[in-house]
């Protein structure tokens, strides 16, 4: 369906200006290889700055790679970037092109610009707005909507004019659970009825685990792993995640706590530890008894998530993946 080989893009070093420091050359995508199969929801997961959006821009023909090939449904997108628009629908992170249009006109215009005639565009617009529950706000301009509603309206525009591949860059940002469910059921319907493939960019770990068939984990422009979410999590299945939140500060006078600190990722009052099960048991025993317990605000024990996989694989960013 979509094959990517050796895709490399380097942003040149920028000279420093007044007030802005010089930035070195950045390799935004580094020899990326991917195979997306027909009908799957394929995810690109990584923290901000990992190169997800740059990769997507190259897949959608918006950016020319320095090297490498992108082939979607047999079409060479590097040689013919204009063909991408006739194969895929892209939902970018920005809505500024549609902001001052009403929801209904945004969807209709997008459909017409995807080559539909007026009648088809209107029929598809009505169907999509109904499907996503946007009909009651169809006459309101996107600008006047909440962030989540606006995102849903842009998603609606992306669905008008059927495409075999949907490329969605963080589609559910800012959405409430109802809107999220509307998005994923619309995606599932298209998948079941037409075999639509979805390429999803996300930094939301929970979403990645629940909706993706396979996921490529990106870090500093490289794909550091690619598997099903369950397959990836098996790689760290021997570990348990322990999170400790202290009331004011960690009781470092307790020797066991001082020893744990070396293995903890600290973020304010919160410590995150990845431990073997028996170590986790010992740690919990320590913090729930004696002097340490008095200093403890909260603790959680959890099986590893894709975030732990990312860190275990050597992901550089300590923060940046969202768990919500």
């Amino acid at each position: 369906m979509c094959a990517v080989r050796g895709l490399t893009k380097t942003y040149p070093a920028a000279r420093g200006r007044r007030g802005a420091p010089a930035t070195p050359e950045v390799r935004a995508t580094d020899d990326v290889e991917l195979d997306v199969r027909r009908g799957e929801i394929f995810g690109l997961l990584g923290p901000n700055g990992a190169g997800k959006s740059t990769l997507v821009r190259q897949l959608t023909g918006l950016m020319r790679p320095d090297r490498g090939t992108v082939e979607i449904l047999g079409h060479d997108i590097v040689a013919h970037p204009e063909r991408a628009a006739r194969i895929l629908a892209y939902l970018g992170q920005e809505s500024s092109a549609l902001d001052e249009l009403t929801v209904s006109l945004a969807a209709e215009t997008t459909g017409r610009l995807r080559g539909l005639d007026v009648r088809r565009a209107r029929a598809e617009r009505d169907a999509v707005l109904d499907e996503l529950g946007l009909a009651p706000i169809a006459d309101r301009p996107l600008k006047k909507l909440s962030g989540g509603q606006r995102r849903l309206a842009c998603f609606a525009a992306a669905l008008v004019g059927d495409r075999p591949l949907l490329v969605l860059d963080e589609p559910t940002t800012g959405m409430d659970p109802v809107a999220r469910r509307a998005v994923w059921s619309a995606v599932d319907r298209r998948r079941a009825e037409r075999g639509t493939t979805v390429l999803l960019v996300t930094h939301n770990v929970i979403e990645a685990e629940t909706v993706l068939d396979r996921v490529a984990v990106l870090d500093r422009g490289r794909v550091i792993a690619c598997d099903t979410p369950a397959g990836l999590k098996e790689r760290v299945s021997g570990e348990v995640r322990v999170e400790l939140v202290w009331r004011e500060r960690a009781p470092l006078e307790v020797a066991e706590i001082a020893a744990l600190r070396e293995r903890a990722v600290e973020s304010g009052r919160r410590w995150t530890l990845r431990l073997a099960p028996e170590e986790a048991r010992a740690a919990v025993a320590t913090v729930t008894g004696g002097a340490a317990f008095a200093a403890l605000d909260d603790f959680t024990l959890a099986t590893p998530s894709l975030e732990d996989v990312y860190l275990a694989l050597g992901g550089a960013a300590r923060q940046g993946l969202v768990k919500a």
Partner: protein
Amino acid sequence: MSVVPADVLAGATAVQERGAGRTAAAELGPRARLWPSLAAVYRAQLSRARVARIPLLFVATFQSVGIMIMMRGVVGGGGEARSVVAGASIVVVAYVALNLLAQYFGQLRASGGLDHYATLPVPPAAVVLGAAAAYASFTVPGTLVTAVFGCVLFGLPLGNLWVLVAVIPLAGAALSGLGAACGLLAPRPEHATLLGQLGMSAALLLGVLPPDHMPGVVRLARDLLPSTYGVEAYARTFAPRPDWAFVGIDMAVCAGVGVVSLAVATWAYRRAAVR
């Protein structure tokens, strides 16, 4: 959440190729044709006036009416009054079509909004011409109000106002083409704003002030500014017996600048859309 595993989908297992290269190229979706997509962009852009009514429709008119009231105290009648009224009317076109369109495209480009159009199979000319046509249309009410108010204020004849039917679209094409090109070529949105503002200021100063007292260099600058030809064409029609040949030549210059600048803007769009 996702309830359909990929591998149970009809056909999915059959096409689990490694690399799509071995399959025959799939049929592409339709391309949007020029005129229908131009009409769709035009309509969508036009609808923005509902949301951004004040900047798009009113500010320029207030500005031009204010200028004319101010000039009323300075300028007597005759040739100078014609220049002021014609100049103030065309400033509405310059403000909206040049300045605001440059800002719009500058911001759209900087915010990544062009990606939306660039990932649709729409001809670049449709996006640029649709937006330019809409911005030229935004100038119609303001230009008419300014012209009528000016004629009444300075006691000029209203008989040849119909010429605006040709002047607005032609000056609109020339100035919106320039505005779109500035907005799409400027490396940063601030530059686009600056270029738009400068163009509008030039149209204001060189268009409204009567040219007779201007030094040679300024007159040359005035001759180089496309809005001047819109002003001249309109100002000539106030004469008791207008020289329609000159009016036609002025409008032809506007049309020529319009064609060239819109072509440049389309090229700039193509360049800005894919990097």
